[in-house]
Each structure stands twice: as structure tokens, then as C-alpha cells.
């Protein structure tokens, strides 16, 4: 879903694609969602989905022993939050990003399910300079939901 206006950029973060940076990313996503005054349930879901997408970059974007960056752009497009996650690694077959059948006892593969269950739209875009991979996730906002417990 798009509006007549250009999407508003809320944040842009380039970070080392490492597990110990994911908490930082979750903090940024949390802050961005709160700017949009969404309810807590949506906030938790969105943070989880973006975190899982970042995990996939940490785990799979770069060959073993090679360090690289990820870049997360957060935009507000009318009543839709847009997350664009980029890596700078080798091209990935987009079919790898579709979840298979969820098996409750499986040890792997849940992250993609979480992303697709939570987000309204998930798709691959072509980065402007043609290198790396760019995942776009879109989530419709539901402001004025369950009141937040301010502590």
C-alpha cells in the first residue's frame, strides 16, 4: 500500500552483521514503532519479525569467516510501516526466503515463519547499486489499540 506522498524515513542504521548487535537493532525498531503510537502487541510482533530477518543476515549473508554489514531503513508510508533490510553479500535466491511447512519439532526454519506470519507483505527488491540483497517488509499500523503500560 502506498500513498500520494513519499514515505517518511524514520531511521537508517548500518551495523555489523553480528549477533551482538541485534539488541541494538531491536531497540531502534522499538523506538520507531513507538513513534507511530502502535499497541504493545504489534510492537512486540514487529520487533520479533525484524529481528528474525536481521538474524538471517547475520547467519547467512556472508561466507564463514567473512564479516560484513547490514543496513536497516525504517519508513512510514501512510498507515504502513516499511522495513528495508539490506546486506552486501552474494545474491540470494529469493525462493530461499519463502517458509516451508512449519514442523513443531524442527530446530530451524521458524524465523521465516515468524516474519511471514507477522508482516502483511514480504518481498525482495533490487538494491539501487545492484549489489547485495534487499528485503522489504510492510506492516499496517493499528494505532489506538491496547493502551501501553507506561512504567
Amino acid at each position: 500500500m502506498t500513498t500520494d506522498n513519499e514515505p517518511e524515513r524514520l531511521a537508517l542504521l548500518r551495523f555489523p552483521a553480528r549477533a551482538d548487535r541485534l539488541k541494538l537493532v531491536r531497540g531502534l525498531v522499538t523506538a520507531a514503532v513507538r513513534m507511530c503510537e502502535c499497541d504493545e502487541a504489534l510492537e512486540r510482533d514487529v520487533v520479533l519479525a525484524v529481528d528474525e530477518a536481521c538474524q538471517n543476515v547475520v547467519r547467512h549473508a556472508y561466507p564463514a569467516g567473512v564479516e560484513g554489514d547490514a543496513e536497516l531503513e525504517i519508513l512510514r508510508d501512510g498507515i504502513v510501516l516499511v522495513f528495508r533490510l539490506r546486506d552486501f553479500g552474494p545474491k540470494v535466491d529469493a525462493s530461499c526466503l519463502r517458509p516451508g511447512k512449519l514442523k513443531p519439532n524442527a530446530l530451524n526454519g521458524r524465523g521465516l515463519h515468524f516474519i511471514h506470519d507477522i508482516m502483511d507483505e514480504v518481498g525482495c527488491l533490487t538494491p539501487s547499486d545492484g549489489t547485495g540483497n534487499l528485503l522489504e517488509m510492510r506492516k499496517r499500523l493499528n494505532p489506538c489499540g491496547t493502551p501501553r503500560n507506561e512504567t
Partner: protein
Amino acid sequence: MKHEITRQGDVTVIALGGDVDLETSPKARELLLAAVKDSRRVLVDLSGVSYIDSSGVATLVEALQTARKQRGELALAAVSESARRVFELARLDKVFTIHATVAEGLG
């Protein structure tokens, strides 16, 4: 991630706290696998978990599978609200025995 391990009768209780994520789940895995190897009954107290992701969930599933292979038990207790949502998404409510409280799990 914080953790505390106590022994209550024949049950090993592992209380996890904070974030169980890609960074910390290797430590959680180490703790849980050691516990299920040493004890026939393990109860994981999740009341202090503020965030859990798919890697944390995978760690719990692996510990459960290891416990069952050894004819032991692993159950969860006091699942926090944020963790409960992740369990719903992962359809784990039918995989784990989940107790409302640690006391119930010890009963």
C-alpha cells in the same frame, strides 16, 4: 541473559531471564543440555524472559528432544507474555508441557 539453577527435590529448576536471542542462546543451550543430562526432571522458569526469538525456541526444543531420548522430562513454567506470543507463533503449545507457575510445575 541471566540464569539461576536450583534443585528442588528431584527437579532441576533453571530460571532464565532477560533476552534469549541469537547472541545468548548458545549459553542457554549449554545450560539446558547439561541439566537434562544430569537430571530426569527439568523445569525451565521463563518468568524473567523479556525477549525470546527463534534461536531461543530452537534451544528449548533441542533440550526437550534430548530429555525425551534419555527418558527424562523437560517442562516450562511461568511463560512471560512476550514469550507466550512467540510460542503461539511457533505452535509450541502442543509440544511442551507448560505450567502456569513454577510451584505447579513442581507438584
